């Protein structure tokens, strides 16, 4: 047994209102740059729908993830090492920009500078790739809220795998939102696909990253990831991906998408797993057994043997403690309500989802029945095959039994807690009907519905990293080419244009961002030295131009007047 720790996430889909706040804040933080215009490390897609990039779930087409060979061995679906090398000059399975969408901006300038005329000037859309006028015909969430789905919905790869027909008419169908980030898989096919060895899984917390200095732009990772969560920065020619906000996680802060989530539906915590058994679990023959296999790879942090093994591997005690308090572990293994997204890709993804009960509740209530009554809900869950089939297509490789079990637990919680809230005696049978006790249901309710900040995020801070953080602070300005070295600073260009040279350390980038924000007139324009916009000043530091200059010769402390 080789115990490793994995920082992972669970999302409670019932609470997602599809507001895209997570996507926007993530974009502002990480991908608001040229070359990354089309990239959303976090995206929220409406299901049923095509997703982003379009039909990424169709692995017959895109060949992401792993497959089993005839002899039952695990190999990359898009072809092993030699095939990768042979197709290095042209990667046949790479989505092109139109499978994502062509990024654009609007000609805002026209609104201000157009001459006086009869008609109101309009801001025409301009392609960010060609600079020419363009007709917008797709985007990262074009079929949001089933908009236009009558035309495209049937191309949803999950629907196509289902035997039952789903009505396209809005009144008759169902819908929910699926927020997605990189899964930080236990068996990441993106890492396996990288010919340069630039991608890696961090040994400490399992975060999957791209080494920007080592990436050579072969784009095999984009093909390799079945979730299409590695992106090619077309300006720098390097792959980039969701970093699980590692600079925040390392200091104990939740990711930006979690922190800003309006529905407060994201949970972050550690799980311990047995790294020696990952390969074996991923090679489980029957796709529908992959869920159980992945669950069995995760280790119970309360088991003394596991704790001892974790200590032997050098996992610090506060990390073990965090694993024991982890909401992710509780949702996956104690309450068994979280399920992985597309286990059949065999990457052992580590962002899990609590499937939504709302499609069922909606049907029950719209037919005039009581959507909080346990028995009505149980009956509806087993009758409403279509949403159930669809959810099974997403989370359990088509096996409806585990999804049904989760939905029944959620329904039981709903009905049990109604009794509690109405001051009635809760019916213990409601809980025992789904294999739980009343107390467990109440605890689960606390975690899912009350969802306190400290219970949602149990993030131990990094250890070894502290040393390097301090290092970075100590010499942050005199890294090669940095401002302290007389270099060009953060906006400057490297020797081969703005995308070359060495990447700026995170701390330096933040230092500059903060100082230019403090001193900028507008949040986006370049700052004018000597003028301070008080609106943007956060009270720290002493920006130039805020106070009158010290008078020469007067070194007496100024009196408060």
């Amino acid at each position, binding site marked *: 047994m080789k115990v490793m720790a994995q920082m992972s996430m669970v999302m409670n889909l019932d609470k997602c209102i599809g507001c895209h706040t997570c996507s926007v804040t993530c974009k502002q933080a990480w991908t608001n740059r040229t070359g990354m215009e089309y990239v959303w490390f976090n995206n929220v897609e409406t299901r049923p729908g095509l997703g982003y990039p379009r039909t990424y779930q169709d692995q017959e087409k895109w060949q992401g993830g792993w497959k089993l060979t005839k002899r039952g061995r695990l190999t*990359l679906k898009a072809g092993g*090492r*030699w095939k*990768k*090398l042979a197709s290095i*000059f*042209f990667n*046949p399975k*790479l989505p*092109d*920009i139109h499978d994502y969408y062509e990024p654009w901006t609007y000609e805002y300038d026209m609104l201000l500078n157009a001459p006086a005329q009869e008609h109101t000037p309009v801001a025409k859309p301009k392609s960010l*790739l060609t*600079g020419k006028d363009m007709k917008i015909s797709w985007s990262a969430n074009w079929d949001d809220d089933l908009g236009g789905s009558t035309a495209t919905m049937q191309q949803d790869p999950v629907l196509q795998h289902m035997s039952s027909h789903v009505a396209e008419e809005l009144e008759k169908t169902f819908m929910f939102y699926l927020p997605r980030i990189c899964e930080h898989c236990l068996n*990441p096919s993106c*890492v*396996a696909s990288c*010919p*340069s*060895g630039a991608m*890696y*899984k*961090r*040994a*400490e*917390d399992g975060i999957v990253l791209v080494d*920007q*200095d*080592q*990436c*050579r*732009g*072969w*784009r095999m990772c984009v093909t390799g990831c079945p979730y299409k969560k590695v992106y*090619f920065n*077309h300006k720098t*020619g*390097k792959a980039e991906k969701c970093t699980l906000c590692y600079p925040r996680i390392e200091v104990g802060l939740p990711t930006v998408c979690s922190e800003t989530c309006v529905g407060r539906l994201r949970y972050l915590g550690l799980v311990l797993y047995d790294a020696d058994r990952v390969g074996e679990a991923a090679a489980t023959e029957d796709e529908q057994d992959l869920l159980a296999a992945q669950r069995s790879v995760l280790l119970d942090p309360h088991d003394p043997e596991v704790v001892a093994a974790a200590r032997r*591997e*050098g*996992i*610090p005690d506060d*990390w073990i403690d965090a694993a024991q308090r982890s909401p992710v572990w509780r949702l996956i293994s104690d309450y068994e309500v979280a399920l992985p997204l597309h286990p059949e890709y065999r990457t052992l993804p580590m962002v899990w989802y609590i499937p939504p009960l709302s499609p069922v509740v909606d049907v029950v209530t719209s037919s005039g029945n009581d959507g909080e009554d346990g028995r009505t809900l149980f009956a509806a869950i087993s009758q409403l095959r279509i949403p159930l089939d669809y959810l099974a297509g997403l989370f359990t490789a088509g096996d409806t039994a585990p999804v049904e079990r989760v939905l029944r637990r959620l329904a039981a919680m709903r009905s049990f807690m109604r009794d509690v809230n109405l001051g009635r005696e809760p019916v213990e049978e409601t809980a025992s009907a789904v294999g739980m006790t009343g107390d467990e249901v109440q605890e689960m309710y606390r975690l899912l519905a009350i969802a306190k900040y400290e219970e949602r995020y149990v993030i131990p801070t*990094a*250890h*070894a990293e*502290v*040393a*390097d953080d*301090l*290092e*970075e602070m100590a*010499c942050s300005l005199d890294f090669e080419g940095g401002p302290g070295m007389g270099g060009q600073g953060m906006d400057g260009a*490297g*020797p*081969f*244009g703005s995308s*070359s*040279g*060495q*990447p700026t350390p995170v701390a330096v980038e933040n230092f500059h961002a903060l100082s230019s924000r403090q001193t900028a007139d507008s949040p986006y324009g370049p700052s004018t030295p000597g003028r301070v916009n008080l609106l943007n000043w956060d009270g720290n530091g002493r920006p130039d131009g805020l106070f009158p200059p010290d008078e020469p010769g007067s070194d007496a402390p100024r009196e408060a007047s």
Partner: protein
Amino acid sequence: MELSAAEILLWIVVPYACLTTFVVGTIWRYRYDKFGWTTRSSELYEKRLLRLGSPLFHFGLLAVIAGHFVGLVIPESWTHAVGVTEAAYHFLATWLGTLGALLLVSGLVILVYRRRSTGPVFLATTRTDKFMYVMLAASILSGTWATVHTQILAGGFGYDYRQTISPWFRSLFLLQPEPALMVGVPLAFAVHVTLAMLLFAVWPFTRLVHAFSAPVTYPLRPYIVYRSRDAATGGGTRAPRPGWEPSTARRKQR
């Protein structure tokens, strides 16, 4: 034989200057610009033409490089020793070389056409790229011309560069340059050699450096790569200061 200043310049000074720039420039670039070291692929923008052009170009190039290796590095006496007659050598070299050149040139034409005609690809073409394309095309076209002109059209066994250019080329690396060998080399070859030297001089400063990143070790490594945060962030900065013991947590794991 007396050599003119121009000949010394062309066959000693320029080659050494170019090769030095090539080596030193590459080391310098690797040291200071790993982030800019990439293929800068434009496959995201356009796939149809690239699907054809890129493999044609690159596989053609591999064939041509192999041909140059045989022609320049392996002495004529060696091939004779293993029983390859002059006729056989000439036949193979000319026709394989021409085939390689055909692939290479058609690939190049497709790629240049694509670069010019596809909006986003053209927009992503930097000035260095354009300069590089001119240099690359000049070397390739002059080489093709030299082959066609002195080997195919000349009749007989064509011009035997293995008596002149090849020994001169090797003499450069033995640090005993013999520029006299290059006197009287056909103009086509003189032009090709000079242009190629210049191409090597600009090589480290263009995207051509991606040639050195050919991922030959990929088949040898395990699929999943683990790296410790220590190694990932600690490298390059100074060692932790004494008096502050960083946790050795998990360092043992690969």
